């Protein structure tokens, strides 16, 4: 049975004339954690943004090829003109290298994506916020100060908040761009555990610099080199 | 629905931007249309060089051009050295606290109403000039230039300072490491690399001097003739516009103010284009 959820065919991507991806073809399986490694500055993060079309906000970038997503058992072209970008980004969440909570309270940060999606009922919002924070192992630490500023949290807490914020939309796919590289090893360890637990509900793609991290948590490793994705083995 | 709202939003914003830009063209259009009779057959250029004698049917505004040129250029002469000195001071010589306060004062000065400069000019500077030179009323090119120099100094200082601050810190570090004093660094490293800021500041200040109405109107005397000395009264293009209150909208006298308006508009547009060519430094920080 075909268990894949993302299918990429002959994907080319260039940025200001610089070719970053030169014909990438790959499919990702459901409920797996795939790590993407490779030399820095060669477009690993950019590759992630081709899946949620976030690169389109960057001037000077151009894309060719096909990215498909299996939504409700049907393959849908991500770049079709009928695709609602906002809806796509709710299905394909992203977490960045540097935690980026918005300058508002913890609760408002969590409720923000719901607000964007037009969810208004207070009870529902409350329940979803709590559930997402619990899934991100953050609830116990912040339940007493939901209304204080998110910027007062520690780096690791901020990153878990950002993950929880992405989870609240119940995405099918979660993209992580070096999620631990701005954190100390304790905080990073917590995020790693969290990533593994996320596999139950989502498909996870993660850019990472650390091969030891990859060997600890990833199901497979893809090396981005010379514009191609190569399946590489994981040394355990 | 969401996409529709986005489109409406974007269109609304575009209309605002287009309308604002249109105002720029509309102003020029109005001036042209109202001054039209004067522009027909190249008369405009004749007017530039002719004297003003409504009695004899002559509506040249040479005197006003001369007045504007004399007063604004002189005010630059007054303001430039002071501004250069103050921006030297602010950049590397001032004790930290004093520098901070002075910078704030300079920023505040850009917001002091020009009518107040004019008012103090009338009651403080003009009597002083009158007594010093014992000649005429004291309402003259010199008084207006001094006051105007004070008005435009803050503008110049802020642009100069921005220009100095934009010079790469690496160069300064290198010079200091080679044993250059603060002043030497300023003269041999900062100043030569800040010419853009200097030019921008000069042009902006000139624009402000040419465009100011109240100071010249209140203390330059407003006589319609080409001034021949610092103590002569003069009338600028701006005060000429302010002073004409012709009841008859069809008189040539009335139309001449639009020719003055066109001249001022074009001079300032030229200044703006010149600054854009230079690649302005810190353009948006001019006020605060």
């Amino acid at each position, binding site marked *: 049975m075909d268990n894949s959820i993302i299918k990429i065919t002959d994907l080319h991507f260039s940025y200001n004339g610089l070719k970053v991806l030169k014909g990438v073809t790959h499919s990702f399986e459901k409920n797996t954690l795939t790590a993407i490694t490779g030399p820095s500055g060669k477009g690993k993060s950019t590759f992630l943004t081709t899946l949620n079309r976030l690169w389109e906000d960057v001037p000077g970038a151009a894309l060719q090829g096909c990215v498909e997503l299996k939504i409700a058992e049907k393959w849908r072209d991500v770049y079709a003109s009928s695709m609602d970008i906002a809806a796509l*980004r709710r299905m394909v969440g992203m977490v960045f290298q540097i935690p980026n909570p918005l300058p508002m309270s913890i609760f408002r940060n969590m409720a923000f994506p719901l607000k964007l999606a037009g969810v208004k009922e207070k009870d529902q919002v409350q329940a979803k916020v709590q559930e997402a924070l619990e899934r991100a192992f953050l609830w116990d630490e912040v339940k007493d100060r939901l209304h204080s500023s998110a910027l007062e949290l520690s780096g690791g807490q901020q990153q878990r908040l950002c993950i929880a914020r992405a989870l609240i939309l119940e995405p099918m796919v979660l993209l992580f761009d070096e999620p631990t590289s701005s954190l100390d090893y304790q905080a990073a360890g917590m995020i790693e555990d969290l990533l593994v637990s996320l596999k139950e509900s989502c498909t996870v793609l993660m850019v990472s610099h650390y091969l030891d991290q990859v060997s600890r948590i990833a199901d497979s490793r893809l090396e981005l080199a010379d514009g191609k994705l190569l399946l590489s083995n994981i040394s355990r | 629905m969401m996409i529709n709202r986005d489109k409406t939003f974007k269109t609304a914003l575009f209309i605002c931007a287009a309308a604002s830009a249109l105002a720029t063209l509309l102003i020029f259009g109005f001036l042209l249309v109202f001054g039209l009779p004067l522009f027909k057959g190249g008369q405009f250029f004749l007017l530039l060089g002719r004297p003003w004698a409504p009695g004899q049917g002559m509506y040249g505004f040479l005197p006003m051009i001369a007045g504007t040129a004399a007063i604004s250029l002189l005010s630059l002469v007054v303001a430039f050295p002071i501004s250069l000195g*103050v921006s030297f001071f602010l950049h590397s010589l001032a004790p930290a606290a004093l520098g901070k306060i002075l910078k704030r004062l300079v920023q505040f000065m850009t917001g002091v109403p020009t*009518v107040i400069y004019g008012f103090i000019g009338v009651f403080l500077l003009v009597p002083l000039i009158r007594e010093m030179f014992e000649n005429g009323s004291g309402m003259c090119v010199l008084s207006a230039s001094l006051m105007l120099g004070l008005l435009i100094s803050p503008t110049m200082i802020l642009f100069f300072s921005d220009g100095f601050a934009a010079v790469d810190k690496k160069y300064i570090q290198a010079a200091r490491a080679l044993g250059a004093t603060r002043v030497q660094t300023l003269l041999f490293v900062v100043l030569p690399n800040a010419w853009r800021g200097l030019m921008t500041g000069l042009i902006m200040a000139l624009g402000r001097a040419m465009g100011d109405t109240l100071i010249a109107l209140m203390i330059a005397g407003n006589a319609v003739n080409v001034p021949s000395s610092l103590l002569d009264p003069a009338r600028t293009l*701006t005060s000429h516009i302010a002073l004409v209150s012709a009841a008859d909208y069809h008189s040539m006298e009335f139309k001449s103010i639009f020719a003055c308006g066109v001249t001022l508009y074009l001079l300032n547009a030229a200044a703006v284009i010149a600054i854009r060519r230079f690649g302005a430094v810190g353009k948006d920080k001019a006020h605060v």
Partner: protein
Amino acid sequence: MSEKALKWTDRAVVVFAWSSAIILICALFLLIGSLLKNGWQTLGLDLIFGNAPPLDAILLKRRVFGGLFPAIAGTLLLVVLSVSLAVPIGVCAGVYMSEYASAGLRRILGLCFDILAGVPSIVVGLFGFSGAIILHRIFDGFRPCLAVSAASLAILVLPYLVRTTQTSMQGISPGLRITALALGASKMQNIVYVLLPRSMSGILSGIVLAIGRCAEDTAVIMLTGVVATAGVPGSLFGQYEALPFYIYYISSQYTDQAELMTGYGASIILLCVCLALFLIALGVRKGLSHQVFYRI
């Protein structure tokens, strides 16, 4: 250059810089000092309300003669009108410039705004004046009035509002820019919920400065309907008094010492208004917590 010559240049520059700074400070304090010295005695309720009881004057029960109240009311109304005209248009135009305009369009529109910012205020006044003439041809009896002044002043401050909005929005870090987008925000939601609140302090300080320009400008209004005596403005289409014009008028037309003193008083009030606005603009830039403006 010899070592000695270098040393002397060094000293000369230091002396030059210090004396420039001292001259500037002295000039400013001479200016303010002479205002205060001559005008401080006039400061008081009489200056503003003349012989009328303040409350009656404010409630418009009694007309004020010999006080600045009508001029202050005129300036206040003028500022409110022109700023509420200019702010929505200017901020929207600034958002467009920063977020939507293509590079080419941004250059063209930017040039327009730069030119508009450089147009002398008397020329903007002349524009308003000619507009009034055209309206006079269409509607009999129309003449320069409060509405014309407000519209002209709005045009005068428009480019500042566009620029401050544009620069403060463009200054937002790319990281913050994509945060909400990655969470499924549309471009408009991103602007309304994240980018605008984030640039609010810059925009606000632009607005405060625009208020200052509207309050101090004399050249625009002297061509578009301000007069020396009109009482408290009663209609948008009537003539009105304003503080800066009053100062100008007194400086050339004062008949006695008392009137001159009122002129000094008016100058002090106007200067204080500008000082207050300046301090507010500084405070807004510095201390504003952006969170105040997030509303969910």
